[in-house]
């Protein structure tokens, strides 16, 4: 198989959410063949606008709920069980090394952290996947990122991926695969790796992928103890379009300024930027280690006067774990609000919309014009460490 070749391949999982699934479900009606290819290999997660924010969202959720009921979809996750899909799917053991996964959500590329090939598609591809269990792909070329060194105590996966997007640009990996390798990966836990692969799309990438190592195996032992998988490795003579070496020990906390994820700066280039809101959460950074880092920096401190800080654990399990570890108490005592899992503010849905001229430091993934609210509001993308330090300082602040 070579780059550029068009292939048809069998799917291990087809994923959709409350925004994209209703469009796919409507498309399903056009198929001659009725039903789904495998009710075990479809995952439908209500996560974007739930608990329903308005009547239209409620109708969309009902559409997905009815479809799941009618077809006996095993992995349907409703309010109470749901989490943000890209945190929930790995946690449920539904993404394994070597799997081929498509999802009608651009951040489906997250599961490459576990050695799966996973990529975002639209609703029609999702419908075709649900009906036939197959999809067409153009074999992508690849970029290789060799990671060396050990990151500093407040440097996270987010800093790495923002640094890379700043380096290669928002279309630097267009149509291509981003492969992460090298001795430095041992210092990235699964949460950090998921942050990195999650944002491959922000460089235009088709997917992001890590090799399966001891860190991956330990995680899978926990979430999918009885499941068999076949890890896929890059060939020794694999051809890469470009290769980069990144020294993790030299990375600094990094912030992407409005209005593109490639507008990255480190704190030596950042002046005084007062802020109005902080969001800590999303499929990118709502994991337990993200919340631990944020809580560590907020313990015994207060969110600055005039700043709202919204914390959103990505799944029910993470929420409960954060509660048991005392992180939620830390956040509330610091003056944060804590929400049930939702994509909400990340895409300007609800739970933290920005007014005209407001500035938000956010651990989410996109800072496009109008993404979180008013078209002249501003989003600064950063790690949970930078976000927590900034919430306390009332302005963009370097942790530690």
């Amino acid at each position, binding site marked *: 198989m070579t780059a550029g070749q*068009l292939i048809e391949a069998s799917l291990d999982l087809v994923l959709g959410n409350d*925004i*994209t699934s*209703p*469009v796919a479900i*409507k*498309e399903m009606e*056009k*198929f*001659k*063949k009725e039903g789904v290819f495998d009710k075990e290999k479809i995952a439908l997660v209500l996560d*974007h*606008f739930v608990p329903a924010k*308005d009547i*239209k*969202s409620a*109708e*969309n959720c009902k559409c997905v709920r009815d479809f799941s009921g009618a077809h006996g979809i095993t992995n349907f996750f409703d309010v109470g069980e749901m989490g943000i899909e890209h945190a929930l799917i790995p946690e449920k053991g539904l993404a394994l090394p070597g799997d081929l996964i498509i*999802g*009608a*959500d*651009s951040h*489906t590329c997250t599961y490459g952290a576990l050695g799966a090939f996973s990529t*975002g*598609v*639209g*609703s*029609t*591809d999702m*419908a*075709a996947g649900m*009906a*036939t269990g197959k999809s*067409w792909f153009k074999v992508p070329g690849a970029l290789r990122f060799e990671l060396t060194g050990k990151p500093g105590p407040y440097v996270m996966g987010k800093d790495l991926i923002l640094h890379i997007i700043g380096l290669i640009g*928002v*279309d630097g990996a*267009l*149509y291509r695969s981003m492969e992460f390798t090298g001795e430095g990966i041992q210092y990235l836990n699964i949460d950090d790796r998921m942050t990195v692969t999650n944002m491959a*799309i922000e460089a*235009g990438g*088709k997917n992001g992928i890590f090799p399966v190592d001891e860190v991956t195996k330990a995680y899978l032992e926990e979430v999918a103890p009885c499941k068999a998988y076949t890890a896929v490795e890059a060939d020794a003579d694999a051809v890469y379009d470009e290769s980069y070496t990144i020294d993790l020990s030299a990375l600094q906390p990094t912030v992407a300024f409005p209005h*593109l994820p490639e507008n990255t700066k480190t704190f030596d280039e950042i002046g005084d930027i007062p802020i109005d809101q902080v969001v800590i959460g999303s499929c990118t950074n709502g994991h337990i280690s993200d919340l631990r880092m944020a809580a560590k920096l907020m313990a015994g401190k207060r969110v600055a006067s005039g700043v709202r800080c919204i914390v959103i654990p990505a799944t029910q399990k993470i929420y409960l774990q954060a509660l048991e570890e005392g992180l939620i108490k830390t956040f509330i005592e610091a003056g944060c609000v804590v929400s049930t899992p939702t994509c909400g503010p990340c*895409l*300007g*849905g609800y739970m933290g919309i920005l007014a005209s001229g407001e500035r938000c430091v956010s651990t989410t993934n*996109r800072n*496009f*014009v*109008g*993404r979180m609210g008013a*078209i002249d509001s501003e989003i600064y993308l950063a790690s949970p460490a930078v976000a927590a330090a900034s919430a306390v300082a009332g302005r963009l602040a370097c942790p530690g």
Partner: protein
Amino acid sequence: MEKARGTVFKYGDNVDTDVIIPARHLAITDPQGLAAHCMEDIDKEFVNKVKAGDIMVAEKNFGCGSSREHAPIAIKASGISVVIAETFARIFYRNAINIGLPIIECAEAAREISAGDTVSVDFDSGLITDETTGKTYQGQAFPPFMQEIINAGGLINRINANA
């Protein structure tokens, strides 16, 4: 395949799906309802000015960001007959083919064609003609596999035809 001919709406690099159709309208699923908000965060006049057959021209990485199929659906339902860009973000590219919105990559045309020009596109050959300036550009015609999907009227019709 037929030709497209219309007046150009011109945009720059990295037009993302959040500005093509902002998420505050994503609970809408009806194509005309989506078209009513198409491009509103970067071009408030678009919905008032666009006519059936008009052409959108943009530069690099058109349609980056979210996988929302609502974006090409909104563009198609607004009457746009073809989008010409230097490059397209890959999910948008797939979605456009799958729903039958013609798109064509051509760097030179994307840079040189101006807003308001009258442009025609021959889908079979990939030839783009700017009738206002008289210049022609060779865009990349679709590979046969994708032409099959477009000619069938989208991915689902193609799957039905081959079933």
